[in-house]
């Protein structure tokens, strides 16, 4: 914008201010005021013409629509008044009621007075409880001890005549394995299971291959609690056997074999683990605090047609092998000894002795209490 245009615009602005007296002219320069004096006079004259026009041209509107407008206004006002009345009544009622916390809770539970709602709520509670239990179990299986390779012993219990095989996979700690020479193995032997680790299996490694029940030379597989299979091991079995096994490992049809996986019954503090506490069904019933989380997995042997790859109808069925109270006590005893809690160990030993003298003798022989004995001797 040129200087001349700017000057003109400023002058016009000043003129407007003077004409309509919107602002005071304090900041207007004297020169520009003088320049616009003549312009102002002409504009003022013109405005007087406009004023005459305005005075003359202001006409009274026809009254035709007034009644209609008033009727519409009255109708609208009555509508609003009703609305306001209803709203204020609601507000008053709300204020008057103002229920306390307990009343509100009771009112909110009133919905369950309906039988359908009650059933739905009950179902919801059951589902929620089941879900929680499932989730917690999952977290125990695959959570804190993910990185711990848990040794599993496997024994085949299958009566060869019927082609049924049962494998019991016990999880104990590597230390337990090494100190006891394989407690689980011995125990299973006691039960009549032939439980043999592969000769080349390292500690914490077990030979297990589901579906290869009939074969005596089972290649070793290391199974961790979380189901992780370390390198070099055949990934044919997942720990806990709670997950669906691979088809090639488990998919056999015909006669069934049972597989039991025992999980670590106690945590490092000697307290029963969640896994132990949440072991399924009868195992939990059989002992107060089940020391062994037992899962029996049923697989099928080749059917009469020899179709080994046929998919079993129910590849995994968890059944409960009721662990004896003595086994539980035995584990507790070992845990107590490991912790150095000899008092507790002896207490448990006494209980075992009362219940099962044979086991007590065996434990004594195995040197389960040797640490405590040496401590006492000292």
């Amino acid at each position, binding site marked *: 914008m040129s200087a001349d245009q700017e000057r003109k615009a400023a002058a016009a*602005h000043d003129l407007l201010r003077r004409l309509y007296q*919107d602002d005071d002219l304090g900041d207007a320069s004297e020169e520009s005021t003088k320049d616009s004096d003549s312009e102002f006079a002409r504009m003022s004259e013109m*405005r007087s013409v*406009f004023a005459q026009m305005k005075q003359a041209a202001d006409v009274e509107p026809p009254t035709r629509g*007034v009644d209609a*407008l*008033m009727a519409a206004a009255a109708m609208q*006002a009555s509508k*609003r*008044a009703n609305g306001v009345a209803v709203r204020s009544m609601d507000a008053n009622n709300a204020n008057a009621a103002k229920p306390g916390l307990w009343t509100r809770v009771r009112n909110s539970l009133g919905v369950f007075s309906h039988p359908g709602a009650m059933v739905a709520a009950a179902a919801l509670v059951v589902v929620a409880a089941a879900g929680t239990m499932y989730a917690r179990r999952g977290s125990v299986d695959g959570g804190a001890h993910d990185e711990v390779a848990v040794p599993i012993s496997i024994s085949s219990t299958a009566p060869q005549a019927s082609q049924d095989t049962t494998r019991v996979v016990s999880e104990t700690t590597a230390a337990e394995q090494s100190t006891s020479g394989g407690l689980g193995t011995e125990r299973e032997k006691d039960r009549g299971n032939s439980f043999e680790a592969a000769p080349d299996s390292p500690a914490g490694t077990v030979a297990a291959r589901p579906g290869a029940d009939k074969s005596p030379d089972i290649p070793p597989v290391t199974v961790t609690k979380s189901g992780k299979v370390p390198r070099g091991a055949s990934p044919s079995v997942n720990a806990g056997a709670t997950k669906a096994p691979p088809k090639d490992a488990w998919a056999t049809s015909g006669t069934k074999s049972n597989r039991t996986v025992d999980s670590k019954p106690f945590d490092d503090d000697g307290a029963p683990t969640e896994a132990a506490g949440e072991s399924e069904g009868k195992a939990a019933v059989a002992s107060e605090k089940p020391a062994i989380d037992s899962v029996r997995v049923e697989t099928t042997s080749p059917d009469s047609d020899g179709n080994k790859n046929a998919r079993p109808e129910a590849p995994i069925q968890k059944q409960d092998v009721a662990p004896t109270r003595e086994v539980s006590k035995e584990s507790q005893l070992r845990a107590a000894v490991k912790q150095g809690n000899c008092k507790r160990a002896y207490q448990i030993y006494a209980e075992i002795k009362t219940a099962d003298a044979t086991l007590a003798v065996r434990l004594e022989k195995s040197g389960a209490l040797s640490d405590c004995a040496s401590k006492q001797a000292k």
Partner: protein
Amino acid sequence: MSSNHQPTDEDLMVQYQQGEVRAFEILLTKHRKPVYNFVLRFVGDKETAEDVLQETFMRVIRGAETYKRQAKFTTWVYTIARNLCVDMSRRRKHRKHASLDAPMGSDEDSGSLLDVIASNDMTADRQTVNKQLHAEMQRAIDALQEDQREVFVMREFMDMPFKEIAEIVGISENTVKSRMRYALEKLRLELDAYKDHAKVAP
């Protein structure tokens, strides 16, 4: 508070919101005429202006519930009226300005705008001169661009401050002043031309 306190337009509107029809009646009586004249100057047609006036107050009635006291009532009403006028003029692409010679009402004897303009106590000669001048000015006003004319009408005939005009039209105050300045310059040129013509004429 004094007993002779006059309720403002905003007070009256709030009273109407609360269901007092009398408050609306006062507002209608007070604003019918200025709104009608504003619309008439905008649309230039009495019947259309009447329709627009009716619709404006119908919208006031319908929108009373949403009215906020913070808003100035006149700004609100004139915004409604102005928007209706703009819609009307858009619908009628060839907007008819008030014909100075055409009868203003439906009655043939209602008189023309020129008659109304010159209906003051003046001598016949003076009346004739003013009639011509007013007619010229009216023609010049009608010839203004629509955006300039609406600003000019609101400022000059409705005595609205620039700020309120800016609110109604929805533009800045400076733009309003700029439009007003252009409108005045054009009208001044028309007035000068008329004066020159009047001097030359016998």
